[in-house]
């Protein structure tokens, strides 16, 4: 159970250039498990994650954490942002911001480099890594602060099967260790493999939500159609 949860969104709206891109959203995320957010392109998945993490401001409504310590939630972007530093320096950066003692940083960096299999690249430039390696590094960098919750925005988009499997194994491991995961994905297979709860977004609104069982018994025609692979607008 995470100290930060439950997370409650009440009457949340986000508007961009006069157009509502998200909302109204009323949602309470429970304390445990992995929540998967699915929906067609442009349905607001990324925006919902950004709002929950606090990167995006809401125009109306409230985002309330049980215990809001920004260092306790991390974010992994669809396109990993690599700092112009070495792999080890990228990993160390979030801890340096918190003024963590150097020996603790070194230990944490060694641990995560070993965990993601990038020990040999520790002194190489992070921007020279492959797509899969970058994403693993981005996830490790988000996890190095030991967050209670990790938001992931389609972390396996554009990755091959091998890299996707490695990342899923890593996510499964951290989820089993108690980190709360909230992830957007367009990969229904991945959603089924990882989800404890499902949120289906359509046109900026939550169209359906529930436990993973709704994959097999969707309550709405739109989710049923989406799961079948039909085009849903």
């Amino acid at each position, binding site marked *: 159970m995470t100290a930060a949860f439950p997370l409650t969104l009440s009457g949340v709206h986000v508007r961009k250039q006069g157009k509502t891109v998200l909302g109204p959203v009323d949602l309470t995320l429970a304390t445990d498990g992995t929540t998967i957010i699915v929906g067609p392109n442009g349905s607001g998945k990324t925006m919902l994650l950004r709002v929950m*993490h606090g*990167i995006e401001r809401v125009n109306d409504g409230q985002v309330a954490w049980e215990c809001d310590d*920004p*260092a306790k939630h*991390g*974010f992994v*972007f669809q396109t990993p*942002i690599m*700092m*112009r*530093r070495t792999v080890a320096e990228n990993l160390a*950066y*979030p801890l340096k*911001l918190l003024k963590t003692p150097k020996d603790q940083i070194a230990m944490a960096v060694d641990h995560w480099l070993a965990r993601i299999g990038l020990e040999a690249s520790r002194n*190489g*430039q992070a921007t*020279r890594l492959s797509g899969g390696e970058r994403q693993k590094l981005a996830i490790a960098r988000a996890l190095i602060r030991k967050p209670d919750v990790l938001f992931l925005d389609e972390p396996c988009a554009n990755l091959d099967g091998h890299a996707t499997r490695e990342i899923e194994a890593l996510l499964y491991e951290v989820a089993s260790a108690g980190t709360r995961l909230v992830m957007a994905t367009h990969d229904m297979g991945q959603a089924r493999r990882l989800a404890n709860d499902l949120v289906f977004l359509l046109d900026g609104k939550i169209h359906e939500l529930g436990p993973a069982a709704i994959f097999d018994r969707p309550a709405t025609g739109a989710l049923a159609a989406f799961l079948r692979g039909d085009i849903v607008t």
Partner: protein
Amino acid sequence: MGIDEELWEISLRSLRVTLAALLIASAIAIPLGTYLAVQRFRYRRFVISMINALMGLPPVVVGLVVYIMLSRSGPFGVLNLLFTPTAMIIAQVIIITPVIASIAHQSMRELWAEYHDLLISLNTSKRQRILTLIYDGRRNLLTAALAGFGRAIGEVGAIMIVGGNIDHVTRVLTTAIALETGKGDFALALGLGFVLIGIAILVNLAIHTLSRTEREGRW
């Protein structure tokens, strides 16, 4: 004093004045350029436009204004800085600060666009963002500083006015070239010009080598 000794003295003074001005201007311009990339405020666009406009500041006008400020009847006359290397440094700082700030802002703006989401998501403070951008963009900032160095080392109008081109006190390579050209000694003026170009190239090479800008995989 022989011509070699004098040339050495003038060259060293040129370097000293220019590098001092470069250090001071960089200390002002780099944080300013980065702050403007990171921070949104009401007159930000106006400030950026002003800095860009000041890149073309006529050195003679800068020299004149600094002269008035430092002359005996001016507000800073009591400091007795007119016709000293310090006055020349002040004039050069005014001339090159906008150049460095403008180029620094441009590269920091691009880096900020790249890092924005990450640094926000890590809940960094404004100070941490600025320091991170300066550190990770240091090689681009070096280019900005070198542009300022190039402008300062070749400057003649302002430092002639505020320095006075006094032998053994404020004479530098550019003012010496102007003097020798006026006297009709074109050979010496041309020789001094080659020395000036040589110093500019050497300093650029030295800084690039020390900062390893061209090393593979680095910035």
